[in-house]
Structures are given as structure tokens and as C-alpha cells.
């Protein structure tokens, strides 16, 4: 779980993103196993989108691995009336954006990648801090092998 202060930071990042990018109708940060971290998605059920994002992400990661394309970076799906874009956000989270059909996809990518990096830093930082004391006292970690974690980024 991501601590409350970081969840607020992530949410304000999502809200800023939606204010800045026209035709962006929803933004949501989710863990790679499909739980919502923060969301600003009026009219859309965030829990469902987060769960589907995790499923799509699993396939996308296997696709990039099977074809020798390295780690997962982003996923773009286009429907008749809009786009769904998912960007890697650090080691254990992703950013999913819902956009209308007329959106400037070039700009969506630029802003989505930047926001993904920032949200990744926030969540990774929070989890690293939360993990340290927890690992010292807790027993075995719950199995997470099925979720196909995002590739490790070197942290300096």
C-alpha cells in the first residue's frame, strides 16, 4: 500500500495533468497488480480500469519480452471514440490516461511519459521507505510472482 501523503501527491499530479492537457478525460495511477493508487476519472469506474490495465500490462510485458524489445514502456489502445494510454511509472506502478479521439497524441505521449516518471518516483520512494522497517519484522512476503513486475530501473 502507498502511504496517504504520497497518494495525495500522486492525485495532485493527475489533476495537474488533466488541467494541462486538453481532451484528456481521465487519469489514473494503479499498481501493476491492478489496485488503484489515485484516480481522477469522472464517469468511469476506476477500479475496473485499474484491473483491466493490469491484465493488458501482463500481455504487453510478455509481448516486449517475447520479441526482444526490452522492458515495458507504454501501451496505446485506440477505440472508435478515443484512446487509452498506459505508461510505466517506476518499478511497481503504471499511469493510465483516457483521452478523446481528437487528442494530440504526440502531446499525450510527452506529458504521459513525464508524469509517469514523476509518479514512479513518488511511489517508489514511498514504498522503499515503507518496506525497510516492514521487512525487518514481517515473515515471508505474499507471492507476487504471477504479476510480472516491471523491469528494475537502476536507482542511484
Amino acid at each position, binding site marked *: 500500500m502507498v502511504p496517504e501523503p504520497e497518494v495525495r501527491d500522486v492525485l495532485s499530479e493527475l489533476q495537474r495533468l488533466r488541467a494541462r492537457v486538453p481532451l484528456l478525460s481521465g487519469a489514473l495511477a494503479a499498481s501493476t497488480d491492478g489496485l488503484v493508487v489515485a484516480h481522477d476519472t469522472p464517469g468511469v469506474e476506476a477500479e475496473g480500469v485499474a484491473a483491466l490495465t493490469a491484465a493488458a500490462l501482463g500481455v504487453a510485458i510478455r509481448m516486449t519480452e517475447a520479441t526482444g524489445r526490452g522492458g515495458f514502456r507504454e501501451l496505446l489502445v485506440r477505440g472508435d471514440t478515443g484512446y487509452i494510454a498506459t505508461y510505466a511509472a517506476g518499478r511497481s506502478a503504471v499511469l493510465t490516461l483516457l483521452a478523446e479521439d481528437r*487528442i*494530440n*497524441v*504526440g*502531446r*499525450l505521449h*510527452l506529458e504521459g511519459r513525464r508524469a509517469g516518471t514523476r509518479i514512479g518516483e513518488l511511489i517508489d520512494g514511498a514504498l522503499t521507505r515503507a518496506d525497510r522497517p516492514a521487512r525487518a519484522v514481517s515473515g515471508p512476503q505474499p507471492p507476487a510472482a504471477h504479476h510480472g513486475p516491471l523491469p528494475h530501473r537502476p536507482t542511484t
Partner: protein
Amino acid sequence: MANTEAALKEAMSSIEGTTGVALVDYTSGMALGTLGGGKDFNLEVAAAGNTDVVRAKLRTMEHLGIQDEIEDILITLGTQYHLIRLLKTRGGNGLFLYLVLDSARANLAMARHQLKRIEAELEV
């Protein structure tokens, strides 16, 4: 007839003062090809940003009821000219050429003339 790569190369080498050129799809805001630019001038960012410029102008014309088309758009900065030229050739619908010129070295009239020629010869 020239393909995208050849047209970008020709613009870069034959138009005096050019520091960057891109062929951009303004339905998506993404560049089909870029040449020049560099670390301090990201042509992908320029492609996305100038897509908004083109879309805004087209929308304004529509609101004004002007039944016409954009031939080109000139943006004059302190030290640069940015030239946007919409494609009219077959298969070029929804695309524009974007040219960045150093205003100290460029001849604007000549650049516009040459870009028009390159656009006419470009086949996407």
C-alpha cells in the same frame, strides 16, 4: 518525386539557415520524420506543440466561416523563423512540414519558395 527522408534531407541541405525540419501528422501530433534539432531543440516537442497551432488556426477559420485552406504559417521569433507548410499532394492530407530557420542566416522569401517546391515533390 521524393520520399519523406529525401525531402527532409533536401530541406536541411538546400534551404540556407535551416537548423531543423520535421514532417508532422496533425491528426495525431506525431512526427513522421525529423532531421536536425538536437539536445536543445526537441523536434518531437515542436511537432506536438505546432499541431496545436495548426488545429487552432483551422478551427478559427471554421468559426469565421472562411471557406479556404492554409497554405503556410510563419512564426517570427527574435532569432528564429518557424515555417509551417501544409501538404496538398496526394496522400499528404493532415500533414505539415515544419521548418526551423536561424533568422541571421536565412532568406525568408527564398526559404518559403524552396519549401513550396520540396512540398510539391514530396510523396508520402
